[in-house]
């Protein structure tokens, strides 16, 4: 049967004020009916452009400069507006990254859904409506009729994405283009959406072009995969072949950079890919990956265009000049140095909580209490890493901010090396400020765009360590060396730095005061995988041999597994499970921990589908919950107990689980 979609040597150029740049370079890709093809790559590789090209909806300034995009054999470029309209929504539909902004905020879900059949030949509004309700049921939205009357903002992120998927499937298209459909969603929601898509695909037989930076999601859903780098397809093949036996050094790098959920701390050092993608790489005549490739041979790789070549199994192609000469992939080496013993307790939290009052007063809104964090008792030891894991809204960041003093006065007792660590930064003495520092999540906002890197480092040196200008300058240079940043970056502004570099500066800044406790709130989650690994390694190196304690906040279980000595699992402001990493990652589990582990995506096509898929959204932190906070979503909820009584704490040595279930001690 003919391909649904095929890209034949498609090149796309962007003409802007800064000249012409090549976004895609000779991409060949085809999708057969009912097939799911994944497209992976880091940010800036051009994967979203492929999606838009498939719908002939390129942003202004972009145009196809070579090649053709064929839909069911017909060139999209040759179609007129009317034909295109009949195609869009009817034959090809799209699911987008950010469901909230993809839905019109001022129209009801129902109207937005009904539009699709009405645009494509349906005359009977009632029939279109029935169809919309049926489709909402297909995407397993609980109350389909009521959802029709709702506005997008009244739904949770997961529900919104289900609506978008329903909208895409309304006309039963033959191709569904999904552009990062689960990015930004929590892992449990992501798992549920992926399951839904798998299921729908099986029922409707829709072909899927699935675009993601997350190798795990691609592995879970796709038949074939293409790897993009700098606008070029560097490797393509069956998902199993590519993930098991990656042929291109870039693909290998991507896979090796990921922490492994099954390998604990000290198990291995991550293997980052050196450098970052820069604009010049796009125009490189030979291999675009050359400057970052550990196996590059400039003579062979930089000479001229490199064709896709057979790399093992059927249909497994890679674009590498040294395809045959590459050494076999090596198992990551264990790093003995990282296996240091934990020291004495540095940070101790006893019943720490943070409730906010919102509304009331002059705002005219009713007063509500947001229970961001309740009754958290944790400790971090010198030389060790305390990881706090949970989905958004779990209170993990609130804990970090309470420790850092950014959340103001908190409930409960917090102490640092036995001394009380109370109040916000404004009331902490300078010495205490110096001892607790923080690394933030977002590399875009961690540095002030109006200050140079050097200034950002010198300022804390002068304030926290009281250094003079010249001393501070020298010390800043040392700090930069310590985080492996070239000295000349000191004069640069944040926007002239890559995300990874910015995060290094942020770490250097946090280290400036030579702190005892470093709080890192999702330090790598906004970075590309290849860069992520380098930062993780840097943090590990910094910790090794120091008696600094790290509090790591993360949603990524694999990363936590890789870094943590102790792990706390949080849900809706409460610690539901806490203990040494090894014990937390082994049964018995809190049902929530279990669900998180099941949902965590693994870049393994043969990993079994998750057994537990959590339904529904997390309740609002403003709700007062009498029983277990997890009861509303718990797959093992016991009627009458879980939603009325607070769960008891079950203690297995240093391992604590807050659950009503009679959990067996590890045997």
């Amino acid at each position, binding site marked *: 049967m003919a391909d649904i979609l095929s890209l034949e040597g498609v090149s796309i150029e962007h003409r802007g*004020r800064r000249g012409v740049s090549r976004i895609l370079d000779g991409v060949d890709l085809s999708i057969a009916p009912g097939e799911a093809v994944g497209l992976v790559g880091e940010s800036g590789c051009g994967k979203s452009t492929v999606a838009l090209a498939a719908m002939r909806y390129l942003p202004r300034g972009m145009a196809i400069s070579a090649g053709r995009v064929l839909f069911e054999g017909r060139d999209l470029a040759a179609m007129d507006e009317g034909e295109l309209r009949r195609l869009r929504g009817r034959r090809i539909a799209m699911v987008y990254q950010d469901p909230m902004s993809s839905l019109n905020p001022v129209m009801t879900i129902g109207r937005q859904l009904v539009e699709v059949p009405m645009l494509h030949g349906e005359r009977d509004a009632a029939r279109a409506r029935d169809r919309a309700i049926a489709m909402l049921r297909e995407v397993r939205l609980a109350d389909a009729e009521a959802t029709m009357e709702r506005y997008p903002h009244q739904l949770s992120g997961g529900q919104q994405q289900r609506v978008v998927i329903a909208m895409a499937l309304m006309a039963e298209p033959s191709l569904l283009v999904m552009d990062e459909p689960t990015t930004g969603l929590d892992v449990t929601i992501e798992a549920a959406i992926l399951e839904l898509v798998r299921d729908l695909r099986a029922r409707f037989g829709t072909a899927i072009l699935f675009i993601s930076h997350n190798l795990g999601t691609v592995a879970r859903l796709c038949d074939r995969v293409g790897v993009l780098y700098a606008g070029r397809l560097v490797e393509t093949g069956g998902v199993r072949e590519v993930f098991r036996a990656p042929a291109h050094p870039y693909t290998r790098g991507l896979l090796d950079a990921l922490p492994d959920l099954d390998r604990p701390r000290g198990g291995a050092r991550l293997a980052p890919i050196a450098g970052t993608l820069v604009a010049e790489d796009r125009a490189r005549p030979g291999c675009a990956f050359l400057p970052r490739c550990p196996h590059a041979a400039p003579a062979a790789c930089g000479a001229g265009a490199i064709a896709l070549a057979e790399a093992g199994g059927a249909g497994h192609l890679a674009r590498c000049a040294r395809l045959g000469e590459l050494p076999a992939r090596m198992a990551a080496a264990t790093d003995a140095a990282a296996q240091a013993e934990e020291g004495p307790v540095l940070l101790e939290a006893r019943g720490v909580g943070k409730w906010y009052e919102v509304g009331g007063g*002059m705002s005219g809104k009713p007063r509500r209490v947001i229970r961001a964090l309740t009754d958290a008792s944790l400790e971090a030891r010198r030389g060790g890493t305390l990881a706090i894991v949970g989905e958004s809204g779990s209170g993990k960041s609130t804990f970090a*901010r309470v420790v*850092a*003093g*950014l959340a103001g006065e908190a409930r409960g007792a917090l102490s640092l090396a036995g001394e009380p660590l109370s109040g916000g*930064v*404004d009331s*902490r003495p*300078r010495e205490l*400020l110096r001892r*607790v*520092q*923080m690394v*933030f*999540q*977002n590399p875009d*906002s*961690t*540095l*002030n*765009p*109006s*200050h140079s890197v050097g200034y*950002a480092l010198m*300022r*804390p040196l002068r*304030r*926290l360590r009281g250094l003079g200008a010249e001393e501070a300058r020298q010390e800043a240079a040392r700090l930069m060396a310590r985080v492996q940043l070239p000295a000349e970056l000191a004069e640069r502004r944040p926007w002239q730095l890559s995300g990874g570099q910015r995060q290094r500066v*942020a770490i250097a*800044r*946090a280290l400036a*005061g030579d702190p005892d406790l470093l709080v890192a709130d999702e330090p790598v989650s906004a970075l590309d995988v290849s860069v992520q690994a380098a930062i993780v390694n840097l943090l590990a190196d910094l910790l090794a041999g120091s008696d600094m304690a790290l509090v790591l906040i993360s949603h990524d279980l694999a990363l936590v597994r890789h870094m943590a000595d102790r792990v706390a699992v949080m849900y809706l402001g409460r610690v539901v499970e806490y203990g040494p990493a090894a014990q937390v990652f082994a049964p018995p589990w809190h049902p929530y921990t279990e669900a998180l582990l099941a949902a965590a995506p693994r870049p393994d096509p043969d990993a079994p589908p998750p057994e537990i898929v959590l339904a529904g959204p997390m309740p609002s932190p403003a709700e007062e919950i009498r029983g277990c906070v997890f009861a509303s979503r718990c797959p093992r909820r016991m009627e009458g107990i879980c939603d009325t009584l607070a769960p008891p704490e079950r203690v297995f040595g240093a391992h604590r689980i807050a659950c009503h279930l009679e959990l067996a001690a590890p045997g």
Partner: protein
Amino acid sequence: MIARAAATVALLGRSPVGCLGAAIVLFWAAMGILAPWLAPYPPNRIDPALIAYPYPTAANWLGVDQLGRDILSRLMWGARTVLTVAPAAVLGAAALGTLLGLVAGYKGGAVDSILMRVGDTLLAFPKIILYLIVIARFGASAFNIIAVVTVTQAPIIARIVRAVTLDVKNRDYVAAARMRGEPTWFVLLAEILPNARGPLVVDFFLRLGYTVIAIGVLGFLGIGLPPPDPDWGSMIKESYGTIFVWPHMTLIPALAVSSLVIGFNFLATGLREASEDG
């Protein structure tokens, strides 16, 4: 800072509208600065002999007004006046508004509520009455006009700065600054304020345009800068009655004031586009 300003100028260079705006503003600025040397006559020199034929001649390129004063010279000196008073007034408003906006946005709570309420009241107050009362009380002088514009525009600027502050104060770099024990003034001025620069600069030029209009309106209503020193609004008012016979006396200053405001607005548009693209 300088590099950034230079980059902005370079970006502005790519916006034709922005270039045109900058050219107009620079033209008038040059006229104003060079008026003492370029103006063919003293701006207030009255020549009764010229009243009989006030139209443009070789000696008076733009003609003379009803008192026989050279319009070109008055226009140039008027540019000097308006380009002194308007920027001073807007800078005053920007300073006051920025301070209030920073404090309101950063402190939040009651301070915010009170400051914003005061600002709202001021904005709800009919402006013309405020102008009149102040000018009736303290007299029509450049300083008083600056003061009134400062007071009436500050709340608007405070709103802009407050919005930026509310956004920026939750940025991580502000948290980082607080974590190293920086005093509030430092956080406000060194960490938050520079990030409001973009919107403030665009607003600054738009506001300059409005202020030029406001000064013109005051002059036109007869409560503007005191005569005889040339002020474009007053020039229009003084000669408006003669529009049926000597339209040039009115139309020329009207064109001047319009072109300057257009210049400022185009410049602001150019800067906004530059910041969007940059």
